[in-house]
């Protein structure tokens, strides 16, 4: 594959808190994540575990005013995003990284035509690089070219449509089109196609795969489906309640899961070859308002040791390319 050794994105010990009445929701509790150039990274976890929050922090597009980052660094190409100036952040968003939202209906402005939206994305992402695409004609041409790249039929007509006139699959493709315009190096796909039916989802996944290979872009693929992660990624991060609990390449992860949560996840997947449906993992996500002081999985964990409730475990390299955050596995 085309993995280089250069680290593109490196999230270190990220803590993110949401301000609510009555205190803070301490959603992210020390997230570590790393993506190399051209790499395909999967982020797996159940709903509400903080995947989207992490991604939005990278681009600094969390809802304004409500969040607080007490600790952590997000290094992109060596520079800390959290300390970037506004201009640098602009450049980051319009040329380097882009995020494809989970719900394409919510991600498109309902009162503007597609042409305006994608035209503006092109205009402002090129302007930063001083290619100065101001002429309407050129913008229109580029829009049509991009829409063709995401396999949208009849791009000229698509430009004058509003988002509610499109089907779910088309909307998702438009979002992908806008993302590839404004991202050279890293794409973040937040559960692409989950709100669509399975056949469309499959098409979207293939499209993403194609684009990523053609453009040599790195991609962070958020999904709650282990199967998708296994097929489409070079490395998987497993996330639980705002912390990374385990990370490894798909082969290693599926062959030798170590963290109790990962083991539970894999066991929950029903197998065609028989074995029935498992009992799942009892319990649910902890309250973020008053999270457990130690390991956040501890309340649901079958095994236990006194140190588990004291302080959160750090990621620990258990073998090559395999890190786990669990006291029980440290010998």
């Amino acid at each position: 594959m085309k993995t280089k050794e250069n680290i593109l994105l490196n999230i270190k010990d990220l803590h993110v808190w949401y301000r609510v009445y009555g205190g803070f929701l301490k959603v992210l509790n020390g997230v570590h994540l790393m993506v190399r150039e051209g790499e395909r990274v999967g982020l797996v976890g159940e709903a509400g575990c903080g995947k989207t929050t992490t991604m939005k922090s990278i681009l600094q597009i969390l809802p304004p005013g409500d969040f607080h980052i007490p600790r952590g660094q997000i290094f992109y190409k060596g520079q800390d995003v959290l300390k970037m100036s506004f201009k640098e952040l602009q450049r980051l968003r319009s040329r380097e990284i882009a995020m494809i939202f989970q719900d394409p209906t919510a991600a498109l402005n309902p009162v503007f035509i597609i042409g305006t939206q994608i035209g503006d994305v092109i205009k402002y992402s090129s302007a930063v690089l001083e290619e100065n695409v101001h002429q309407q004609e050129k913008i229109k041409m580029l829009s049509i070219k991009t829409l063709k790249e995401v396999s949208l039929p009849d791009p000229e007509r698509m430009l004058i449509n509003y988002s509610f006139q499109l089907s779910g699959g088309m909307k998702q493709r438009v979002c992908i089109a806008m993302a590839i315009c404004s991202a050279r190096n890293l794409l973040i796909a937040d559960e692409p196609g989950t709100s669509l039916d399975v056949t469309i989802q499959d098409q979207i996944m293939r499209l993403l795969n194609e684009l990523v290979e053609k453009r040599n872009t790195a991609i962070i693929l958020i999904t709650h489906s282990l199967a998708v992660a296994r097929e489409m990624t070079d490395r998987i991060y497993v996330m639980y309640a705002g912390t990374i609990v385990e990370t490894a390449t798909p082969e290693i992860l599926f062959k030798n899961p170590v963290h109790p949560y990962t083991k539970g996840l894999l066991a929950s997947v029903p197998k065609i070859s028989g074995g029935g449906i498992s009992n799942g993992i009892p319990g649910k996500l902890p309250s973020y308002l008053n999270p457990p002081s130690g390991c956040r999985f501890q309340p649901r964990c079958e095994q236990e040791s006194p140190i588990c409730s004291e302080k959160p475990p750090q990621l620990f390299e258990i073998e090559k390319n395999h890190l786990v955050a669990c006291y029980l596995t440290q010998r």
Partner: protein
Amino acid sequence: MKLGSFLLKRLLLSIFVIFGLSIIIFIIARVVPGDPARMALGPRVSEEVVQRLRHEMYLDKPLSKQYFYWIRGSFSGDFGRSLVTKRAVSEDIKEYLPATMELAIFAATLMVIFSVLLGTLSAQYKDTWVDNLIRMVSYLAMSIPAFVSATIFMLLFGYYWPILPVLGRMSPGMSYPTSITGLLTLDSLIQGNFVAFWDALKHLFLPSVALSLAHIFQNARITRSSMIENMRKDFLSAERGYGIPERVIMFKYLLKPSLIPSVSIMGLGFGNLVANAFLVELIFNWPGISRYGTNAMLSKDLNSISAVIMVFGVIFVTVNIIVDIIVAFLDPRVRLSTSLGI
């Protein structure tokens, strides 16, 4: 095309509404106790003269015939004669309506500009002192009726700080510009008469502010809440994430969807502006149709009253149609969706 049929439906509805309005006005006017002919001529005139006037006013014919005459007359602009000014009501209206329109339009302009400005400011600086200050002032301003603020302005600017004129449309001794639209400010501008323009504008200022004050703040609140609701929406985060600069997001992608609820309310507000002009005109001695109409109502001048209410009804209905068009222009879902709600 969906937009066309939408407009057509609205127009037909409006015509129906205006007709219904005329019937109601007519009923109200004729159901009034008292004899309008007698009241117009006074108690000392002989019965014959009164009878003649009654005949002239069709008061001796059955109600349906009276209505018919009235409607037929209004199509040609003949609303009968005013019993107070003794001349054709349509003349009265022609003379006084432009003044009220000028006042209402200027007040409406102030309303639109300042409510959007204040609302956007509040939303941008949400929960800071700017927002809280505007909120406090809004609560107060919304509770001040137009005639109260007019009275206070009279007190303040008429006597304590005479920096702005408080009576009439132009200073005594100034010559009026020749009338093209009837709007003094426009007419003087068109003719290049800047002295008159400035004078008319100064006179226009206080009444308009008194009239629009409550509405400015009410709409500022609505704009603010609409903006705040849209600020949290995903499409804004997405657009920001694609690298679109902040000012484009604010002034284009946030503003347009947020304006939609404001515009409808502002349309209703315009009707209220025109209605409240009644009282403000009285206080500022503004020679508009509201003052004329109020006098007509108090002296039970039937023809004038009916005509004035009809005029207001037509204005209001027209403004509502215009507002509907603007909303349809702003919000494509209204235009192009397949089901037309109510």
